């Protein structure tokens, strides 16, 4: 269809343009979404953001690093509950593993929202390419932090991003006052 030269040049050009055409000062927002949780209830990002920031965590039962990260997310959810943080665990299991998700989640006593991304809509919308992936969205709808993979200790980065977020929020509130 295309010569190898053309493809390579398009490849180089696209990367180059995408890399250098960014305006770092630009503030842009995550796109709103509505999705069903494991109990069949609809969850909308806009509604969750009304209470505070949202941490999306893409995971699957077969993903070992994801399962290692979950206890740490439980601790984070507990610690920042008063600050209005909502953690949304976006499940990516295949159809034949989907029925295991709810029993697993319940017995692990996850204290966060678990949704089923059945048609990979959120995976596509947030351009995820690996599991686990964590995406922190501030209350104004801006993505402020992204992390892929999990090693013990990686949760510290999420906590640092959250602390920075709440610090900025407090500073803004003080300035407004």
């Amino acid at each position, binding site marked *: 269809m295309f010569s190898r030269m053309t493809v390579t*040049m398009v*490849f180089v050009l696209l990367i180059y343009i995408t*890399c250098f055409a960014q305006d770092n000062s630009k503030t842009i927002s995550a796109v709103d979404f509505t999705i069903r949780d494991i109990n069949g209830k609809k969850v909308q990002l806009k509604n969750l953001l009304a209470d505070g920031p949202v941490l999306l965590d893409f995971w699957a039962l077969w993903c070992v690093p994801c399962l290692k990260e979950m206890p740490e997310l439980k601790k984070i959810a507990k610690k920042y509950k008063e600050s209005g943080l909502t953690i949304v665990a976006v499940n990516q299991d295949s*159809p034949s593993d989907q029925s295991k998700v709810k029993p697993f989640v319940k017995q692990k006593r996850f204290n966060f929202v678990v949704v089923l991304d059945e048609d990979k809509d959120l995976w596509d919308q947030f351009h995820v390419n690996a599991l686990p992936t964590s995406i922190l969205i501030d209350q104004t709808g801006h993505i402020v932090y*992204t992390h*892929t993979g999990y090693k013990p200790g990686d949760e510290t980065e999420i906590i640092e991003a959250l602390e920075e977020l709440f610090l900025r929020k407090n500073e803004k509130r003080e300035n407004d006052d």
Partner: protein
Amino acid sequence: MTIKKLSSSSAGFKVQLAVLVVLACIARTPDAAFTQIGPGTPYLLNRWLSSVEPSTAETDREINNWLDVGYKYSYWRAGLRVEFHDPRNPQVYNDKITQRYVMFKKDWLRIRAGNFYERLGRGLVFHAFEIQSQTLNRTDQNIAIDRNIDGANIKLSFDNVDVTGIWGRPLKMFSSDRGHALGGGEVRFRPFSALLLGGTFLRFSDDFLAGVAGLERKIDLELSSLQVGLSLGSIDLHTEISQKKSADESAIPSGNAVYATANYSGDSFGLSAEFKRYEDFNTDFNNPPALVKTHSFTLLNRHTHSLNPNDEIGYQFESYFSPNLSTTITLHASGADNLENNERQRFREYFFESRQEWGEQAISRVLIDYSKDRLLGDLNRWTFASEVDYLLNDRNSLLFDAQLQNIDNENNLNGKYWNMLGLLAFSRSPFMTLSAQYEHTTNAFSGKSNWFSGTLNLKVGQHHDVILTAGSRPAGLVCSGGICFQVPEFEGVELRWNARL
């Protein structure tokens, strides 16, 4: 590996040039530059996979790259994928734009034209998906499979009703060619929150190549299914019954399928029970649910059950029990009977797994698995596996993984043989993981008995993961998300690079 030698043409040079540009981007781009996505935003995903195998007579090199770029503006989004593969494999790949799409999404409406992925019901009738090398921190999941549809997709989501429509041309199995168009849709209705009623219909037609002149026929299939789901607090039930009607029984027989699940979700105990029955349900464009456990231990995934959608009946039970917050016990039993090579083949698997958190310091997993698979000739297969994560401090950790497998195979010269795997990894959060893996087998059919590899996994900023592996690894199945692939033996150096900008 069965790959051709990279010529000394300028192709390699151009690819290296592209790498240099990307490297320049890393150096140039501050972390915050691409953390935002949303209206008026470009996005870029890139997967790079290259390898060199100096052990063969002529050094074999392979370069593969998948680049997804796009742009979002308001409710609109458009994007494309460019794939680069050197050496080329004309059977599967070409160096070209392999996907492009434009999408409109607002509130209850989503319309997408171009390439798309979609699932109807639990995937019994239709499931177009992609599996990339998705899990980071593991070097054995170097796989990719793409079953996208080229056409159009519409989705309407109201409070109690979801409507999905699809039309397009699927990729043919093991080919970059597309078949004839399929079209259909699904309606899911929730009269109240505890009840789900759904119906799916799909029509597909293609040319059936009999391999003999004059015997070519037209495939004309109609697939339909009904779904019922009931959610009663801690108990969930779901059943999907499907029928495949063929216009020409001599070309493709008509068939049917049933998939049913029942779950109990308690505070310290959970149970999932599944049943499948497939009769003449194979199609060229879909893989129905396999009901096979996707293990996280490498040796177990190398021997897994192969689904036969034309004749299979099976079940899967899995239970979770947490006597306290730091202990989880998993019990699993699955089985399937299918017809292969005109013989009934029986697969059975049972396993016990215990996961224990030892305060803040360590997490351990222990697994004992017994299985038998007539199709593979495995009369008895025992696997013992353990994994320990030890936290040295708040940033540094050690991982030790040991797996031992004994297989009594009726086709093997020695009858019984052993497989062993040991892995030691050191991680420094959030930047790096360094690991060494050793494997040994006494399998008489294996050309080698020892494999050793070292892997360095580096995280560069928030958006780049670079994984460098040197050494050897055996051939075998690799499974991810319920889909398994055969990967060839490898000895050399491999570089993977995932960028998400």
